[in-house]
């Protein structure tokens, strides 16, 4: 009878240990590569804290007289871009979401196509969309609005598709069994179930879009980014400070508004 009296406790099996070790190795190797090959001029790195402090000093005190009318009007325009862009994105996002949801559309080719559209939309950053639409519409808020809209389609569509796939199949089965046509089944069976998620996603994306709209002006697509770009290019750091504070204020207000509305809706 040879029973070992001491039992060893190992947290991971040998395979798991090798796996974890390999993952760590990959992470460290990639970091080492990155550090060694990235072009960072050492003098800049040493200078950095001093330079940042210098910049902050130049931005203080912020030039508040600059606020009205230039900054204020631009802020309002930015909000319009964000809101309208979010609303427009739903026009494309809803059909794509329905096409991508595997419980609604059971044709895998269409599911795949819709997912591809959604991935492409969100892989292209809103700034790049802005560049594209400035080339199409010319500089201004129209380009910004469509940039926001096209960028948001991927985000909204993906989350909507997930919400649709999570709906309970029972009510839809009941309506189908009663002979309800497809449109009515969607309206009365699916829509009530995804409604809370729908508004949550809209608010979530609007919040992000307020932030994103602020920078579109840097490439000429309207909004406060234009004012910011001008101020930076003319080295008017006090004005830059004002614009930054204004953006900060709007972002904070947007978050408060979103939190309040969300509390009331859900």
């Amino acid at each position: 009878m040879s029973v070992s009296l001491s039992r060893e406790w190992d947290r991971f099996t040998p395979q798991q240990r090798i796996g974890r070790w390999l993952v760590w190795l990959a992470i460290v190797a990639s970091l080492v590569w990155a550090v060694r090959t990235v072009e960072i001029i050492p003098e800049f790195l040493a200078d950095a804290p001093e330079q940042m402090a210098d910049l902050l000093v130049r931005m203080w005190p912020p030039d508040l007289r600059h606020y009205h009318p230039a900054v204020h009007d631009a802020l309002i325009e930015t909000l319009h871009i964000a809101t309208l862009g979010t609303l427009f994105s739903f026009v494309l996002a809803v059909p794509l979401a329905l096409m991508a949801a595997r419980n609604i559309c059971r044709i895998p080719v269409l599911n795949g196509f819709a997912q591809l559209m959604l991935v492409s939309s969100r892989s292209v950053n809103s700034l790049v969309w802005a560049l594209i639409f400035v080339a199409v519409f010319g500089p201004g808020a129209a380009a910004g609005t469509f940039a926001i809209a096209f960028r948001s389609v991927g985000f909204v569509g993906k989350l909507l598709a997930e919400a649709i796939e999570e709906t309970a199949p029972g009510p839809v089965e009941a309506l189908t069994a009663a002979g309800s046509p497809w449109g009515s089944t969607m309206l009365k069976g699916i829509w009530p179930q995804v409604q809370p998620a729908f508004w949550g996603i809209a608010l979530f994306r609007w919040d992000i879009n307020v932030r994103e709209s602020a920078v579109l002006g840097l490439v000429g697509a309207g909004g406060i980014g234009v004012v910011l770009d001008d101020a930076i290019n003319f080295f008017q750091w006090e004005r830059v400070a004002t614009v930054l504070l204004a953006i900060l204020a709007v972002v904070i207000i947007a978050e408060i508004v979103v939190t309040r509305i969300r509390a009331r809706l859900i």
Partner: protein
Amino acid sequence: MTATPDAAQAAARQAFAPNWMARAGAVALAAYVVYAMGRLDITWARLVTGIGEAGRFLGRMWPPNFERWELLLEGMLESIQIALLSSALGILISLPLGLMAARNLSPAFLAAPTRAFIAICRSLHYVIVAILFVKAIGFGALAGVAALTVASMGFIAKLFAEAIEEISMKQVEAIRATGAGLGKVLLYGVLPQVASRFTGFCLYQLDSNLRNSTLVGIVGAGGIGGTLFAAFKRFDYDFVAAILLSIIALIFLAEIVSGRIRAAMR
């Protein structure tokens, strides 16, 4: 069954409680869209011309031109470096930052300012932060790394702090009761409860940084963004298409890889 007075009363019974808030909201939304489109000068005429322009634009982008693939590769590699470094730095800094910001572990005088700091990191768009760093410490990848590190801190530290606030304090008390010091309490009581969520945030942020690192170059902070912006300015739309396709491919790959990692973690 004889017709009774109840039948007349039945007609007067309320079948549906009218939802005035929802109706008012829908009308307000429609009115807003019309108003905002007017303010932003988005008219049907412009939309129609825009579609024509878009067609022309797409024509010039096809076929994508990969002739200057060395430039493309160089830019992409730099973007990946920026993403890796900023994620690593951001994660490292977010660990203590998140712990300090958690109100159930950290005293109020420490938690409050830390939370404020994290909020500020999140408020400004990473492109704006990148511009400021470019002006402060010079063009190049350093500014990009700095900007995205700030963005990573704002995201990971916030979610990390929230995750810590949601843990069960009973487990922490149990470890404390064994007489363990602060380090061990954190390691055995806190971290196991939040480890998988933390890894999730880090993966998400790495993904996000990868997307964003392709952009910061537009304002001079290194990576493929600079190449992209230059191509736009020179109307080299077919090169633009090549760059965009590479970026989309990279992000798509990254999503697949992180999907696999998440699946393996479960």
